[in-house]
């Protein structure tokens, strides 16, 4: 039997008393590629963040590689790809510098980067097809290329588990293909993947199992559901009104 990489048992998460995840249980075993699907606001991103220990559970348990997430310390085994790069502060950073941050989980805070680190960064950049942009400021990249940068950052740490939050949202076709290829390489090497998606697109063939989250509950756990209705049309332009953008600026109340 393959070991469990992620387990969530009766997980409940609420923000300010408003429940977002009501009762979620799931298991991801080694080598699986699992997609968490659901509408906006269904709680799927919250689920990912609870698994990573970024939001506390009000009840239930989460384990990573068999250890409760609160006491989990082997973070080099996990590669996390957030939804997007945070709004820049104006201080430039090159693609290679951002990707190099992915090595810290493995190397620790005090040790300076060595040859193995540089090689892993180069390899991760190659895997997502950004080698020629290594020395460019991240801010000059397209949204899809920035997303690939974040994936390269996670890959650079040579993790066993990749957790991705909407990796293909708003990403151009070329980047989606590059991303699907990188994911395939990762799983061929024995990696486990949990990703949140709104729609699968070119990732469809890579995904082994789908978990559909609906209003804080798991509505489906099994084969990837076929798109129905007008969503199934190959030329369906999948555009949804997303939540209002936070105005990032001097007067935003964050």
């Amino acid at each position: 039997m393959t070991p469990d990489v992620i387990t969530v048992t009766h997980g409940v998460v609420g923000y300010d008393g408003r429940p977002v995840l009501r009762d979620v249980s799931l298991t991801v075993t080694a080598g699986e590629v699992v997609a968490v699907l659901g509408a906006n606001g269904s709680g799927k991103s919250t689920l990912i963040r609870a698994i990573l220990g970024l939001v506390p559970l009000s009840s239930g348990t989460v384990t990573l590689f068999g250890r409760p997430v609160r006491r989990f310390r082997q973070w080099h085994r996990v590669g996390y790809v957030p939804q997007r790069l945070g709004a820049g502060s104006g201080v430039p950073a090159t693609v290679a510098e951002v990707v190099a941050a992915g090595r810290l989980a493995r190397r620790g805070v005090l040790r300076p980067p060595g040859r193995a680190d540089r090689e892993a960064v180069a390899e991760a950049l190659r895997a997502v097809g950004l080698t020629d942009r290594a020395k460019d400021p991240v801010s000059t990249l397209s949204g899809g290329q920035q997303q690939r940068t974040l994936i390269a950052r996670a890959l650079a740490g040579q993790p066993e588990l990749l957790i991705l939050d909407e990796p293909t949202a708003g990403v151009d076709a070329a980047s989606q293909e590059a991303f699907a290829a990188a994911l395939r390489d990762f799983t061929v090497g024995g990696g486990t993947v949990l990703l949140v998606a709104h729609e699968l697109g070119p990732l469809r063939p890579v995904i082994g199992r789908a978990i559909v989250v609906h209003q804080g509950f798991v509505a489906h756990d099994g084969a990837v559901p076929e798109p129905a209705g007008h969503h199934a049309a190959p030329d369906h332009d999948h555009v949804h009104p997303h939540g209002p953008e936070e105005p990032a600026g001097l007067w935003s109340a964050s």
Partner: protein
Amino acid sequence: MERELNLFQYEYMQLALVSALIIGLTAPALGIYLVQRRLALIGDGIGHVALTGVGAGLLFQTSPVIMAVIAATVGAVVIELIRERGRTSGDLALALLFYGGIAGGVVLVGLSDSTSSNLNAYLFGALSTASRTDVATIAVLGTAVLIAMIGLRPALFAVCHDEEYARVSGLPVRALNLLLAVTTAITVTIAMRAVGVLLISALMVVPVATAQQVTRGFRSTMAAAMALGLFAGGAGIWMAAVADTAPGASVVVLAIASFVVVTLLAAGWRRLRRARPQPAPAPEPHEVVLGGS
């Protein structure tokens, strides 16, 4: 020229130059992390808090600098803990801390029957009164901050760039944040002698703002900002000697002057480059064409 050569024969001028150079190098090395995490003005706030320490030191006849280090460190840690909670009342709490700090400082200095020139020395800097012991303190603390900022660059960069990712990487995020808070307090206090509480933030932030107009990466920005800080520190003291201006203000004026010059040059360079290879894409046609004219 004559006057300046003569002046630099005096030890107090040499000491002033050495302190300004150390601070010019250290302040931007720390400031880049503060700018990166959008806390550019935190140095200013901590400077306000340090003033209460100065007042307490003058009142109780202990070293104002040591008291300032203590007050600033406590203030910086409190600010960091408030920031970590990340609630909307955060900026109000900061405001209370800042204005409480400066008001407390002024009241305590008043109680200590020090002269107002004594207060001015801390508000705007008084490099020419720095003793050998002061300069030794500046050198030791400045070097410690510099080593931490350069040695821990990958980790500090990760925390300031994407704190959540740093957490998931297993980095000691809180310890690194507190390290930044404490080193900010130390830098503010040693820079207080040179440029004064009211101008400290300029030396932390302005060289970074200047450098990032022309650099492409974090590392090169840090190096360029440190070079600019070093230049402003050295040239500011020289200008103070030649033109008999206030040293602290001269350093800051030069830092801002380099910002203006670099901004103009960078804008000109971008325009040139854009003009040369290919003409800019044609502007979109007007949706409405107004008749007449």
